[in-house]
């Protein structure tokens, strides 16, 4: 059988961001996929040379357009560890609340895009309609829909008033109800299952060996979630990772769907345990010489920050490893053997965030 080479991306209707895959195809069956990255490299890590360590928070938020809060939390945690700053308990809980709101809206966005990838456009609209309520919560409580910009080194710079907390609780109740109404369609619908069940299977061993992260890993049956480390306020919350075992696109979408509901639950728990107190600790001086690794759980998986300080206000090195970077080798393992028509669904099932990956 002759081999045909089909370029997939960087501009493709299903891809929100540019990644190129060279697909070697034999009679509609993909035999090999070769990725090419580098279309949206912005050099954000290098900005650590000219922006001081406080200003880098705003830069780190812009690594990802969806989970900005979680990047900022990861970076702040690193600097706080380096400078031995103790974050007030209230600030930690507020960070959890906004992080989980980000996770749930990221998952809702992805569920919509995933529905669109297999051509279920009305489901896409329904998910995005639900997501709007969470965006409104972000906007009302922080001042911006996506780049919430509430983190500072040592805490947060926005607070939730009792009125806002009551409003958030009533809104997330509606969100939960509306998300549950879509559960049957995304998990049990015949057409959806025909496109997702058994497509792009990644075995548990492969997922672990290839270093998959986040829902891609948990969809293959490995219970690994950075929130289990209990960073920030997560130690005080009742948390258990969501795991599915079939390792296909259906499992990955189900993990994300259940995590959306779990995030809403975590927001409720965090609000119930929100202590009174300071919002931010005083931070003096510059990060000392030394290096630190921090890990947090992003909607897409484990995100690692390496920070090296040199005693000045500029950092020596900032290195960001995002979950999509870890999920590209598993993606390349999923593709061989699938049909060409399933490629968009499989590519989207890892929730590719290419801007994150290239920073």
């Amino acid at each position, binding site marked *: 059988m002759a081999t045909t080479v089909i370029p997939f991306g960087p501009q493709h209707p299903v891809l929100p961001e540019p990644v190129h895959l060279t697909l070697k195809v034999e009679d509609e069956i993909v035999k090999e996929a070769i990725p090419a990255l580098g279309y949206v490299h912005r050099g954000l890590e290098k900005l650590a040379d000219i922006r001081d360590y406080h200003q880098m928070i*705003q830069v780190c938020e812009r690594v990802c357009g969806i989970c900005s809060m979680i990047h900022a939390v990861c970076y702040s945690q690193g600097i706080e560890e380096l400078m031995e700053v103790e974050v007030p308990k209230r600030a930690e809980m507020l960070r959890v609340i906004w992080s989980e709101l980000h996770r749930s809206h990221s998952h809702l966005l992805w569920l919509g895009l995933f529905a669109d990838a297999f051509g279920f456009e009305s489901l896409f609209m329904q998910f995005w309609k639900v997501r709007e309520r969470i965006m409104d919560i972000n*906007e009302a409580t922080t*001042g*911006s829909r996506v780049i919430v910009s509430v983190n500072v080194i040592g805490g947060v710079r926005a607070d939730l008033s009792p009125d806002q907390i009551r409003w958030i609780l009533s809104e997330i109740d509606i969100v939960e109800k509306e998300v549950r109404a879509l559960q049957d369609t995304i998990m049990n619908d015949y057409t959806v299952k025909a496109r997702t069940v058994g497509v792009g299977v990644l075995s548990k061993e492969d997922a672990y060996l290839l270093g998959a992260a986040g829902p891609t890993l948990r969809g293959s049956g490995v219970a690994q979630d950075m929130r289990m480390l209990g960073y920030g306020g997560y130690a005080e919350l009742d948390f258990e990772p969501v795991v599915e075992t079939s390792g296909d696109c259906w499992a990955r979408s189900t993990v994300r769907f259940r995590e959306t509901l779990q995030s809403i639950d975590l927001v409720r728990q965090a609000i119930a345990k929100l202590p009174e107190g300071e919002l931010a600790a005083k931070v003096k001086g510059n990060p000392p010489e030394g290096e630190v690794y921090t890990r947090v759980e992003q909607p897409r998986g484990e995100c690692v920050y390496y920070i090296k300080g040199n005693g000045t206000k500029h950092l020596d090195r900032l290195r960001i490893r995002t979950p999509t970077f870890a999920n590209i080798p598993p993606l390349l393992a999923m593709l061989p053997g699938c049909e060409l028509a399933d490629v968009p669904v499989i590519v989207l099932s890892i929730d590719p965030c290419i801007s994150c990956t290239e920073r």
Partner: protein
Amino acid sequence: MLFTPTVIKNLLKKPATRLYPFTVREPFPNYRGELYIDIDACIFCGTCARKCPSQCIEVDKEQGLWTCNPHACVYCGICRDTCPTKCLHMKDVHRKPMTERIMMVEKGEPPKKKKPAAKPEAKAEGTEAAEPKSGSAAAPETAKAEAPAEKVEAKKPDAKKPEAKKK
């Protein structure tokens, strides 16, 4: 037949979205929109310029000039939060799309060289300006404040147009 109830429900229900240009949602009160300065309360300390992560603000203490490139601004609100006299504010709506590049240049009175007399005055004014929190209340006040201050346009003569329109 299975879909009939859903179809009928959808025909009778209101649309899920707003009819946008005709119905516009009320902005949230602390939305981080367009940045503006109450130049009379400014003491030209330069804190905003130093703290700004996108380095879009320049402060000239000698001449009493405050310059901001609104296209480089990332609307984080750090300058507003760190301003010692609370003379920076953000509107609760974002800037309208523009066809030309502008620079916001505001000219105020530079602080006197020996400043014990000038400083308490500026501070008192600053706390006054900080009190009204909602955008609608703050806007007319700055309109008043801006009027006496001389405005210098850097590149385009219509630099203030979008602001003027909104008021």
